[in-house]
């Protein structure tokens, strides 16, 4: 659309513009291919090519990308929102704009609408119902389960482990539970180039400095010659590798395994319910 605003003056002009914008929004708000099973099938191919690397096969969530089968989405309530998210990416996250990076190929507008049709087709229809008691989960998180010693939610908690405010809104229940029961396994997630945007890989680093002091903590970042780490007292250490007596990196997480003798299935359900309630906000 390319017309000159200068030709239109006064309230009439303004209302014309408002009406036009409203019309455009209304027209674009719904996917023109909505409900077309052929479009959804084509969208599935597009999804596999462009999205599955992060969001997983079947859109069930991957190492970095949220589970897209959920009814509630942080960035894509309407079809138009979803189109916009796919087309332009989400600033400040690993979600890239369509066709701008090395992963996947650029999609045409039609192909993006096919993708939207596919994602809608695999969506669960009802918002996720948490099975546990969120209030009790919160008490456990900040109390007996000791989660908050290392994890922060809404600005409150420790710093050594990943921030968990958004995790309930972006990860599957199964993934959250597995992270609690077997934390080391999830350290493998997201080890591809796009994840370079995330400094914190939470690998366990143990070093011995030149003066013989051992420091154990999590990696904040690392390159060939340096490491930036946080120890269990939340002290940051900035180190040059060639000045260390030893440097060891392990994918054995510093987080203890919470097996059923430490945390019952019911209590875990409650903690997950709490995280989901926070993530939905």
């Amino acid at each position, binding site marked *: 659309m390319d017309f000159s605003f200068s030709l239109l003056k006064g309230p009439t002009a303004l209302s014309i513009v408002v009406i036009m914008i409203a019309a455009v929004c209304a027209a674009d708000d719904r996917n023109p291919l909505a409900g077309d099973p052929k479009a959804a099938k*084509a969208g*599935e*191919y*597009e999804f*596999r*090519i*462009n999205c*599955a*690397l992060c969001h*997983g*096969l079947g859109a069930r969530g*991957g*190492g970095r990308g949220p589970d897209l089968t959920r009814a509630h989405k942080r960035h894509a309530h309407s079809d138009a929102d979803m189109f916009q998210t796919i087309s332009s990416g989400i600033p400040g996250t690993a979600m890239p704009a369509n066709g*701008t*990076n*090395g992963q*996947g*190929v*650029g*999609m*045409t507008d039609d*192909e993006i609408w096919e993708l939207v049709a596919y994602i809608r087709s695999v969506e669960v229809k009802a918002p996720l119902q948490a099975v546990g008691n969120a209030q009790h989960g919160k008490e456990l998180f900040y109390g007996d389960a000791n989660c908050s010693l290392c994890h922060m939610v809404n600005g409150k908690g420790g710093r050594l482990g990943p921030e968990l405010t958004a995790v309930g809104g972006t990860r599957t229940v199964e993934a959250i539970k597995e992270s609690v029961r077997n934390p080391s396994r999830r350290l*493998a*997630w997201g*080890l*591809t*180039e796009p994840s*370079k945007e995330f400094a914190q890989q939470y690998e366990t680093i143990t070093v011995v400095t030149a003066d013989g002091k051992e420091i154990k903590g999590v990696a904040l970042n*690392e*390159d*060939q*010659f340096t490491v930036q780490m946080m120890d269990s007292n939340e002290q940051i250490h900035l180190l040059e590798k060639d000045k260390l007596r030893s440097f060891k990196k392990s*994918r054995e997480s510093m987080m203890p395994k919470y097996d059923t003798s430490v945390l019952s299935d019911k209590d875990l359900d409650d903690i997950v319910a709490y995280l989901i309630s926070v993530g939905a906000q």
Partner: protein
Amino acid sequence: MTARVNGMERSRPRMSQAFHVFTITCVLLGTVQAPAQVTFERLLNSAKEPQNWLTYSGDYAGRRFSPLDQINKTNAKTLVAKWVYQTAATGKLETTPLVVDGILYATGQDDRAFALDASTGRPIWLYQRQLPNDIRPCCGHVNRGVAIMEDKVYLGTLDAHVMALDSKTGSVIWDVSAFDYKLGYSFTAAPLAVKDLIVIGVSGGEYGVRGFIDAYDAATGARRWRFYTVPGPGEPGHETWEGDSWKVGGAPAWITGTYDAATNQLFWPTGNPSPSNRGAGRAGDNLYSNSLLALNADTGKLNWYFQYTRHDEHDWDATQVPVMIDTDGKHLIAQANRNGFFYVVDRSTGKLLLANPYGKITWSDSKDAEGRPVARKDASPTLEGHTVCPGALGATNWMSPAFDPQTGFFYVTARDQCDIFSTAPQPYEAGHAFYGSAYFPSDEAEPYVGALRAIDPMSGKVKWEFPHVSPSWSGVLSTAGGLLFTGDAEGNFIALDAASGKALWHFQMGGEVYASPMAFAVDGKEYVAIAAGSAVYAFGLP
């Protein structure tokens, strides 16, 4: 058009600066021995002028070896940054600069091409192509560099044009369309100037193109020959395609090949058949995908071919620079292939001499009578997904290897990664992505690693490796100073001892490297240059 880009206004020469630049250019030309025009003779004898870097790989043999030795094992630890040129654009830089008589020519995002004062990094001219907004590059708006011949530099563009720019001003001399970019054809590789021809291979293996290698008259832009990498009806090799699959068979040729003057042959590697990860519908070997082609440089006629990966289903393009090695009277061509094997072929006959893995491999556990690795039956992708090593990005990729005649080693940036390969049955639609596949890292996999590996090309054995913290997209340069230079994904530029792989020096450039380094000298001072992030960096002694 020249220097008309937003954000470049301040750095482009104004009138007074233009005069200054003119003066500098005259002084430079006055102080060097070599003639101003880059003749074919000069390209053939590039070793005689080590201060210049005249072709993509530094010489026609593709060695990426600089005979300069001022920067060496003893003084490398004192290297400092000399200048940085910011392109002021987003997206990665894959360019290898050329340097001719004090002027550096390189390319950037969206088919920028620019000339810099090679000793200061100050821009002399900038050409910015006005690309249509519906181009279909697969993997970023990238370009790997220019070729130079006589008084022109040559550029392949993302909208599938080949163009000649005046080397002193960046003015367009000629501009020809090779194919309809809307069907997914593009150029990303640097052309190769040979005799009076500009040779370039097409990109677009993600869109079901029919690959080709073109040669254009360097003076006029008239196309002199085209070799289709997928044979048409009646041509030998056509029978290796099922039905009409050849029409969208892929086999692009998106890296710069090498040239053997003794036999007047071009050696040009080709990419994956399309769709890349689904073999159903294209039964057969799918010639000449994933092959090394020996072409007559004058006519483009095929002398011989060697296919590295037959009927590929894992996106293992053979688009790695094929390096000519002459030793003990043998004329060899070596390639560290994306499929994880290091191959040595007799370049007179195309006969395979050696194939040895240099990385993690699960797709093959046997060889045929000719010594070619044979794919396991269970290596094919499935709808549910199936783990295979190397992954789709390959055991290496397009980043340049180096061959060092002093150490005798072949150096390659390697990646040990396995992927889950899953088919995504998909009909061909003109101009649309045509992968037929999806691939992603396995949740169960060990974290994958990267390394610079030194291979003995006579045995194919890995002699040592320099592990990277994560896999790198940087190529490798070797120099007569006993050094290797490479970059990494964390933004380091690193000098290593070429004999042992020991790191001697590094500099944190602040941007991931997707390019291969090169070396040059101006006024007797050696420089090493590489692109990282959105900038080009030059380093030298204090």
